[in-house]
């Protein structure tokens, strides 16, 4: 019986364990967390025959490398990147069979930001409040990977999914986010709302799993003063005093005191998660 586990050889810039998050605890101040590109996680898991919410690794820009301690099937998806096994090229986006002791190298993203590395049986770290996700804001779940970290894997499933390969949407050159105005659009001037709908921003390098920060025109407030702290939804476009919109992602705080001018459609947030710093961002209001 082999030891169903992996050892981290190269942790990369920021690699975390993620599943589909821990909804239902926002009233206690616990963010939902979970993979920033949940569609990529579902696809990786389908290709492995895992439950769609099995835990995977989420890399950031520079990938990661792991050594297997058992025979395991892996799939690398999300942001396209070179994949090698013991230094030899292997397939991205389709199942790769690994023998015990082999090193799976997930290279730097060629496009996009976050690659997802799934294994049959899923990463089996202990769940916290029903999820294995690392929540960077709250410090819940496993710490980000470090070189040498051992990761347990779950029991491999016997049945593989009906697909061996799948079409992967590529990260866009320009990030177009559909937004529904409100709840606090009334706190902004009509000119600011026109600016939101017509101008462009760029993704700031200060972006992280908590929020996509932007550089660009400032949104001018019509109502001064402080907003009493209120609940913040996923995708909230919060406007801090500098006027530059911040889009709240999975690790966002559950309450906050700056007005939310609009909320991004949930379906668009995965693309937000793959937008590299400098990407042009446009907001398209809909009713």
């Amino acid at each position, binding site marked *: 019986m082999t030891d169903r586990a992996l050892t981290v050889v190269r942790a990369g810039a920021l690699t975390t364990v993620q599943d589909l998050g821990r*909804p*239902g*605890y*926002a*009233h*206690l*101040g*616990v963010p939902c967390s979970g993979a920033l590109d949940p569609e990529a996680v579902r696809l990786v898991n389908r290709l492995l025959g895992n439950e769609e919410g099995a835990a995977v690794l989420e890399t950031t820009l520079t990938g990661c490398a792991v050594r297997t301690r058992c025979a395991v099937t892996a799939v690398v998806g999300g942001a396209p990147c070179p994949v090698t096994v013991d230094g030899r090229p292997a397939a991205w986006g389709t199942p790769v069979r690994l023998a015990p002791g082999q090193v799976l190298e997930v290279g730097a993203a060629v496009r996009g930001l976050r690659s997802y590395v799934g294994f049959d049986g899923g990463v089996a770290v202990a769940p*916290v*409040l029903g999820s294995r996700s690392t929540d960077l804001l*709250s*410090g*819940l779940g496993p710490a980000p990977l470090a070189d040498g970290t051992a990761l347990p894997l779950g029991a491999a499933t016997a049945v593989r999914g009906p697909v061996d390969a799948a079409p992967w949407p590529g990260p866009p050159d320009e990030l177009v986010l559909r937004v*529904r105005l*409100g*709840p606090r659009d009334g706190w902004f001037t009509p000119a600011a709302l026109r600016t939101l709908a017509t101008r462009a921003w760029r993704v700031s390098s200060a972006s992280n799993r908590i929020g996509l920060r932007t550089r660009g025109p400032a949104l001018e407030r019509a109502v001064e003063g402080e907003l*009493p*702290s*209120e*609940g*913040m*939804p*996923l*995708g*909230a476009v919060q406007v801090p005093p500098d006027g530059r919109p911040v889009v709240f992602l999975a690790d966002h*705080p*559950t*309450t*906050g005191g700056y007005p*939310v001018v609009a*909320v*991004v*459609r*949930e379906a668009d947030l995965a693309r937000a998660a793959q937008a590299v710093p400098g990407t042009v961002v446009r907001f398209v209001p809909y009713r």
Partner: protein
Amino acid sequence: MRAREVFRVGERGLLVELVSGEATEAFHAELLRRREAGTLPAVREIVPAARTVLLEGVAAPDRLAAELRSWDVPVLHARVAASVEVPVRYDGPDLADVAELWGVSVEAAVRIHSETRFRVAFCGFAPGFGYLTGLGSRYEVPRRATPRTAVPAGSVALAGPYTGVYPRSSPGGWQLIGTTDAVLWDPAREPAALLSPGTLVRFTVAGR
């Protein structure tokens, strides 16, 4: 009492705005009562805050919004709620400043705080961090002009009309008046949070 406004929030969210903190707590309690009774449509999150309750993951938001606008919720009184005592050493670095802001002696400030019956109005900021009301507007204090980069876990603090206890070490701008050994947040415990919205709280003097 009725909702002052119900806003749509994105595709599947609603934000109910109330006229006061008390009305917000009453509306939140009514939402929980109806969810318990099975008469509220399924929602993913119910997040009370200072003057609002956010509902996320609502299947038919327009229909629920119309229903919420029609609710006339009774005031909260004598409801059965969980109650906890939190022993505090009143040794915080800002205690003297708070006493001065209140215009009382340090001894009197400790007495005022430890004799107040608090209730958790809402949570946020960090897992297990509760915003406790009860002191009243007479004792509101501003945040520190410069936030501390690290406030130790267990710090008992004041800001605006609220009292709170830091569940873990984090940056913070609240006025620190004491410390407690109580464990505010432990994900391995059921429930993980010592304080949740509605919990009644008394701080007892464990030293100075």
